[in-house]
């Protein structure tokens, strides 16, 4: 008796059932997982965490004029957030002075924002006249706030990056011979080279 074609095919397929092997998949999967874990562990040990610094820094009524000292020079980050309110509190003569300071500071921030590439490459050599102007502005603002009985005080906060001590020393030299610097509080902090500056925050707050 001859077996029908359909029955032959059925028997054939039962005998040679297609079996999927999961071994290659698992092997590749575990390898990828192992490599990823290794990279993760390695990076957590070798690369310190990257930290962004806030551009606007204040504590109570004390507001920081931040100067970041890098090997190639400095990045100045003036505060502008509270100047409008200060402007409202002072008399007419001082209003114009504050407006002028605000204009200069906003243009400095815009210049930084326009800088293409990493912001930390925007460092420039500290210029004596510019430093003197910064010190004079801070002193004027503090005196105007005091005169108007408005709680506001700016201070200089230096962020010192590795190999950035030279620019800092230059500014301190300038500060040692100007009267404007006498009344300005100063702070300084050591920073690591992977701590970057977040300018987005300054920009949104400056509006």
């Amino acid at each position: 008796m001859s077996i029908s074609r359909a029955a032959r095919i059925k028997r054939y397929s039962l005998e040679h059932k297609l079996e999927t092997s999961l071994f290659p998949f698992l092997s590749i999967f575990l390898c990828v997982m192992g490599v990823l874990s290794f990279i993760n562990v390695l990076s957590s040990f070798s690369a310190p965490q990257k930290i962004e610094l806030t551009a606007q820094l204040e504590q109570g009524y004390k507001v920081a004029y931040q100067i970041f000292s890098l090997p190639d020079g400095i990045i100045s980050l003036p505060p502008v957030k509270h100047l409008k309110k200060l402007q409202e509190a002072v008399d007419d003569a001082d209003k114009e002075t504050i407006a002028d300071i605000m204009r200069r500071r906003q243009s400095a921030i815009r210049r930084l924002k326009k800088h293409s590439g990493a912001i930390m490459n925007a460092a420039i050599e500290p210029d004596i006249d510019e430093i003197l102007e910064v010190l004079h502005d801070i002193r004027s603002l503090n005196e105007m706030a005091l005169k108007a009985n408005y709680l506001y005080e700016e201070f200089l906060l230096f962020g010192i990056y590795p190999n950035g001590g030279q620019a800092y020393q230059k500014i301190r030299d300038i500060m040692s011979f100007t009267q404007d610097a006498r009344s300005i509080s100063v702070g300084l902090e050591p920073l690591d080279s992977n701590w970057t500056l977040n300018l987005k925050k300054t920009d949104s707050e400056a509006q």
Partner: protein
Amino acid sequence: MKNLISLDSLTDIVSNSVGILIIFAVINLIHDNNKTYQLEIPLEHATDLSPVFFIAKDDRILAMDTDKLFSNAALQATSGAAGGKRIFALDFFGLFGQIDEDKGISFYARDTSQWPEFHELEKRNSDLRKKLNSIDPAKQFAYFFVYDNSEDGATAGSGFEAFRKAREYLKAHYVKTGWQPVNSEAPANICDSAYSSRCIYLPSYLGGGSTAK
């Protein structure tokens, strides 16, 4: 017919675990990218406290025995070895000195191998810890000359990490600290404020501490 072990459950477990790990990694990455660090606000201020000087370099901290250093420098000066702004050995942990009318005594730290490493702060009976513990917060504060130079690939200046750890330790013991960055071109120097306005060593107070948002 072969008896195959079913790998379905194993694959399922492994896939789920990897999926969860990936989700954690992504969350971690997003969290890290948004991390913003506010600088501490350490403001220098005038004080009646007297400074105890330290040098931080190559992850090591040296407590400066100023009495010994000044007497050694005076000996060198009287013997003529310190004339003409010559750099001379101070016989104190590899320090060299230079006497300058404007800057007082400058200290060059060339060999730091004998200095205690800042990790010794974690050891209970280490000399470094004893030295820091000996500072009386009612009368003294710690002033650090911190080397800012970094080797290729290093993220911090050679004395930054040591200084941060020491400051943290001293803060916990209510001791104020002050510091300034130094390097081989602008070395640590101690002078009298009567000679120059740059010879002022002030402590800082840390307002509020650091916060990560």
